[in-house]
């Protein structure tokens, strides 16, 4: 056991000494977190559903309609001149009041910048629809009486039905932020990339330069050598995770739910990747090939497994295909722990699947692991 620890620790030390180590384990993942956190967490352009209303109306009805648009979910700005820059503008035309008083149908323009946030745009869309419904309801209640007397004798619309939103009972109390969704995905992706690339290349290099063979000249057995290599790559994955979790806690207030269960998920996932990296490093003989295969595997697993985008927006067929990716199981475990506050009873099947991946990868790694070319 001591020898396994010694070999594993040495591999980790060599990795930390690498010139690009901090770029790979900290700087690059942090750039990813910032990019993807901003992309899916909140809009890069308008964080709240902003709506500019260009009120050109010459009567009272324009201002009255704008009042119907007021909502806590929307950031409303009323202007009288066309704005130079906007995300979305609702244009109330000069004859808006005249046409309403004449009961003549009209179409108002809603201009949306093509780069504006779609989610915020959808909120603005529904708020405009709701404002129209409210105004029409008042008009119908008012009936066919003289429109000039509307503002004095109207029966104002009231919100009789409200909507209350909550999260499922016995889950979490706080609505998760964009980074709560992004960070686990980045963590899973970079553990895969780091362990597969670094772990795979170092196995190949050690074999090529006969380091593995020389270790066997010492008192270490084959099993201890293999165990040490496996442990070294597991430690790489854990170090990468620890750095990202620490950065997440310090910079983004990462919520990991049950820390012990989340840690167990990381350990099991990193172990599966450690075994896979030995397999990759054992069957491939060139650094470029290992980098290529590892990038292909890590990116496909990450994309399918929901590390890059929320899995809910993916078509059902791809969600089914995602189950072949170990990243999917690690992400699903994180979701259960972080967002639903689940315990071991709910996540053990996922961990078992990951252990299965690990077992298959270990068997393959053992089958192909060679100490010499």
């Amino acid at each position, binding site marked *: 056991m001591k020898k396994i620890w010694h070999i594993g620790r040495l591999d980790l030390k060599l990795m930390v000494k690498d010139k690009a180590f901090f770029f790979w384990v900290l700087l690059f993942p942090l750039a990813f977190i910032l990019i993807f956190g901003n992309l899916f967490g909140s809009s890069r352009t308008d964080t709240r559903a902003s709506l500019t209303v260009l009120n050109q109306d010459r009567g009272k009805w324009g201002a009255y309609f704008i009042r119907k648009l007021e909502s806590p979910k929307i950031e409303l700005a009323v202007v009288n001149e066309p704005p130079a820059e906007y995300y979305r503008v609702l244009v109330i035309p000069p004859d808006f009041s005249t046409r309403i008083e004449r009961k003549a149908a009209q179409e108002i323009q809603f201009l949306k910048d093509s780069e504006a946030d779609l989610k915020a745009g959808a909120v603005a869309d529904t708020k405009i629809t709701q404002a129209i*419904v*409210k105004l029409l309801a008042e008009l119908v209640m008012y009936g066919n009486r003289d429109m000039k007397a509307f503002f004095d004798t109207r029966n104002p619309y009231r919100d009789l039905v409200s909507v209350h939103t909550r999260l499922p009972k016995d889950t979490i109390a706080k609505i998760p932020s964009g980074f709560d969704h992004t960070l686990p995905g980045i963590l899973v992706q970079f553990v895969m990339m780091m362990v597969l690339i670094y772990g795979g290349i170092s196995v190949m290099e050690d074999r090529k330069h006969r380091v593995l063979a020389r270790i066997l000249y010492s008192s270490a057995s084959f099993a201890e050598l293999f165990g040490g290599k496996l442990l070294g790559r597991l430690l790489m994955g854990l170090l990468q995770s620890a750095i990202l979790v620490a950065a997440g806690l310090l910079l983004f207030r990462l919520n990991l739910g049950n820390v012990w269960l989340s840690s167990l998920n990381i350990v099991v996932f990193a172990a599966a990747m450690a075994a896979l990296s030995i397999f990759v490093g054992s069957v491939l003989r060139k650094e470029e*090939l290992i*980098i290529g295969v590892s990038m292909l595997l890590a990116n496909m697993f990450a994309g399918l497994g929901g590390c890059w985008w929320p899995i809910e927006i993916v078509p059902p067929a791809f969600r089914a295909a995602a189950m072949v990716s170990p990243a999917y199981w690690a992400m699903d475990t994180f979701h259960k722990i972080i967002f639903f506050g689940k315990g071991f009873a709910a996540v053990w099947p996922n961990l078992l699947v990951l252990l299965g991946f690990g077992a298959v990868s270990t068997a393959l790694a053992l089958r192909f692991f060679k100490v010499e070319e």
Partner: protein
Amino acid sequence: MSRTTLIIGNDLRRRLRSPMATILFLVIPLAMTGLIGMIFDPGQDNRTKLPPIHLLVVDNDKDIAAKFLLGAFDQKELKEMFQVTLVDAPAGEKLMQKGKASAMLVIPEHFSADLADQKPSRLEVVKNPSEEFLPGVAEEFAATMAVGFSALAQVFADELRIIRGFRSLTLESVTIAEMTPFLEMARAKIIALKTYLSPMLLKVKSVTTKKPGQEGKPLGFNIFSYIFPGMLIMFLLFIIEPSLREIQNERADGKTRRMMFSPLSSLELVTARIFSGWLIGFLVCLLAMAAGMLLFGIDWGRPLLQLALFAIACFWCSAFFAMLNAFFRNKNQAGAFASPIILVFSAFGGSMLPLEQLPAGMRWVGKLTVNNWFITGCRRIMDGASPLLPLTLLAVTGLAFAAVAMIALPRRLSV
């Protein structure tokens, strides 16, 4: 000149003898483009469709308003948008706790009665915390339904009260005379409704606008052609870089010194390395162009212009890595820095995310990358616009890098 050609030919033969790494770096952008494209393909109408939202509905009212609300889900648009499952409250809560649906809509007890009595009532939306988008859509839908119900309840307040009264009576106990005022009242409302709703008094017309110089997605746009250039340039950098890193490897294992015993000049060696990197890259581009057309139906626009862009971009990459290798001390340094540089270029230059999605600051930094100009050039050629600016910029900077490499690299080779 013949010595330079000899080295280029030799480099090419070496790459062709073990082509797996190059093939792999060509397969990765194709695979990633395929995956992302298939997931986010907006289809012919250019509108990205969300998968159906799994919505649980708990009906605690079981009266007319709840039936009306449930009936709304049978309308074509809502039927496509929502996959509704009617559940009781405890079962729904359990399913939500397991994350089995995007949201749960709870219709409260006495919902219909409260509406008829003009009393406030509350729809409840339980959101799946692990999902980011779909629960929000369900919430907005519920908010719109709430406004609709509030409006209907107020418009037909009198009628609803009378209907409630009638429901406790038998047909025999109601006379036509008693019903006449009610019918007259309803008739007035229906006339008013007709005035305002047929045609609709107020409608909204959405128009998507573009800032000057801003590129939009044309109708029938091919998402693969949108993604692939970014992926291609990222992996092109990975493919070309080892050709130039070879300078460091040969220097480390003494090959360069041996080569310098021949009549070969260091300038010829550097030129040959730059052009062998360029040639490998260009051949990969040709394959990528064909694969893009065959697999994804990408229309590359004017082929000659596109080939010119590929050639210039490959030259840029080759010259850039030649220049970097003039400043790297050894092969370890070259190996350690090359991949991070490529990834930073790719992250900022629009290979990992569309340029328009990047924050303004990042987009500005992105303008310093080959990725940005390659992607911009590709899109311009595909759109039938002039790629003069990207082509000129890449050509001028590529020549500058090559000049620096020609001056600095021979010194490194002589050490």
